[in-house]
């Protein structure tokens, strides 16, 4: 009796196939595609495949991929979890109190999905294999245009129309990334300005007092100038040129040139 030996041989073959699949993992278009490939190994009509066996093969595949530290996309793992659940439901006797579809319903649906995908692939193949315009049969090569009467007709396609609309509505989105310089007070400018001014600030002075003229009125310009000047003050504090003080949360921020002896 060579049954055990045969079993061992089969599992070697199966393992080789699994590995072949794993090497090829990028070639699959998602879990359903992989399942379809696996189900073809059962060499039976897709309507009679063993979903249980298929679930096991898939789970083995995922395990093997993990063992080989192959990064599997999330949808492969979602499918694995679902198949593990399905497998357990298929193995357990049905619980009459449980609501919802039976394990058999779920298995049948999976088989249906595989059959449908396969059918569409075959249909696609038949479609592409048809005689095609410009390949096997041809349109008139010289449509006739003896100019007698010329009329210009403007035309557009739906695609052009909706793309035009999208273009208008997403103008800002498509714009190359750039600041509106008019309302942005750059950090470099703030640094230069603060460096020049801080030497004179022997006493604590309000940060707002360092804002450049024209940027002090409330609004986006002031916000930008304030942020840049504050960032510049932090930079200068780090360089040891000034001290910063804030007496409490939201209180005015005050700056002062660091006394010379502390440098």
């Amino acid at each position, binding site marked *: 009796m060579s049954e055990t030996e045969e079993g061992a041989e089969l599992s070697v073959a199966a393992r080789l196939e699994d590995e072949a699949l794993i090497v090829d993992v990028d070639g699959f278009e998602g879990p359903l595609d992989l399942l379809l490939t696996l189900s073809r190994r059962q060499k039976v009509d897709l309507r009679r495949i063993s979903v249980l066996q298929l679930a096991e093969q898939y789970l083995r595949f995922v395990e093997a991929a993990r063992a080989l530290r192959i990064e599997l996309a999330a949808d492969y793992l979602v499918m694995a979890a679902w198949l593990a659940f399905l497998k357990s439901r298929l193995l357990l006797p049905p619980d009459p109190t449980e609501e919802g579809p039976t394990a058999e319903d779920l298995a049948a649906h999976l088989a249906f999905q595989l059959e449908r995908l396969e059918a*569409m692939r075959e249909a696609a193949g038949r*479609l592409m294999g*048809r005689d095609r*315009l410009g390949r096997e049969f041809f349109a*008139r090569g010289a*449509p006739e245009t003896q100019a007698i009467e010329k009329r210009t007709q403007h035309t557009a396609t739906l695609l052009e129309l909706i793309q035009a609309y999208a273009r208008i509505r*997403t103008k800002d989105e498509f714009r190359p990334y750039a600041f509106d310089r008019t309302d942005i007070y750059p950090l470099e400018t703030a640094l230069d300005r603060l460096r020049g001014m801080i030497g004179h600030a022997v006493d604590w002075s309000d940060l707002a007092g360092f804002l450049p003229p024209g940027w002090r009125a409330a609004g986006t310009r002031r916000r930008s100038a304030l942020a840049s000047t504050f960032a510049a003050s932090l930079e200068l504090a780090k360089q040891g040129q000034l001290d910063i003080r804030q007496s409490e949360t939201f209180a005015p921020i005050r700056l002062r040139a660091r006394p010379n002896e502390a440098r």
Partner: protein
Amino acid sequence: MTDETDRPGPADPNATPGLFPVPPMGEQERMVEAILFASAEPVSASELAKRLPEGCDVAEALVHLRSRYAGRGVHLVRVGDGWAMRTAPDLGWLMRTEQVETRRLSRAAIETLAIVAYHAPVTRAEIEEIRGVSLSRGTIDQLMEMGWIRFGRRRMTPGRPLTFVVTDAFLDHFGLETPRDLPGLKELREAGLLDSRGMPGVKPPEDDDEDSPDGQSELFED
């Protein structure tokens, strides 16, 4: 773009009779033949009727013309609502100089095209459900640009999703008279493989479309 209203209907029996005599059928056939020969694109029967003299029977002329060209090197074929002259497919090998290099379609694009053809009208979510993967950007785009699929009516279900259908240019390219002539359509339908059947006990997957990268789209909706 003239509207139909100011012209008499095609072969309208109540049309003012014979300001000019209706040309004999042989002549009508010649006219249809000339128009179809001159055009590279299919011409609809209504367009033919518009261009022929009043009182002509375009449908009959087409029947005559079709049988006249049966077995010839050039055929009269029907394409959706239109009619066109096309060379016989068995002579394709002669036309190497005319052959156009068509853009190579990805497997995803080919499958998507087949799904749109066989399941039309079909929503994006249904295409993804059938293929088991989300539709990559560019696939629909490519098929639209090739003029093979277009938007159909919105589905009257929650969310009113858009649907896709195939175009007459698709029919023309693949030598189909109507979408009903798709190979194997009947068998697929009978086998229930064109039914849209969701996972039992599971809501349709539209709502948990995880990787749709368009979270910000409502920024731009009104």
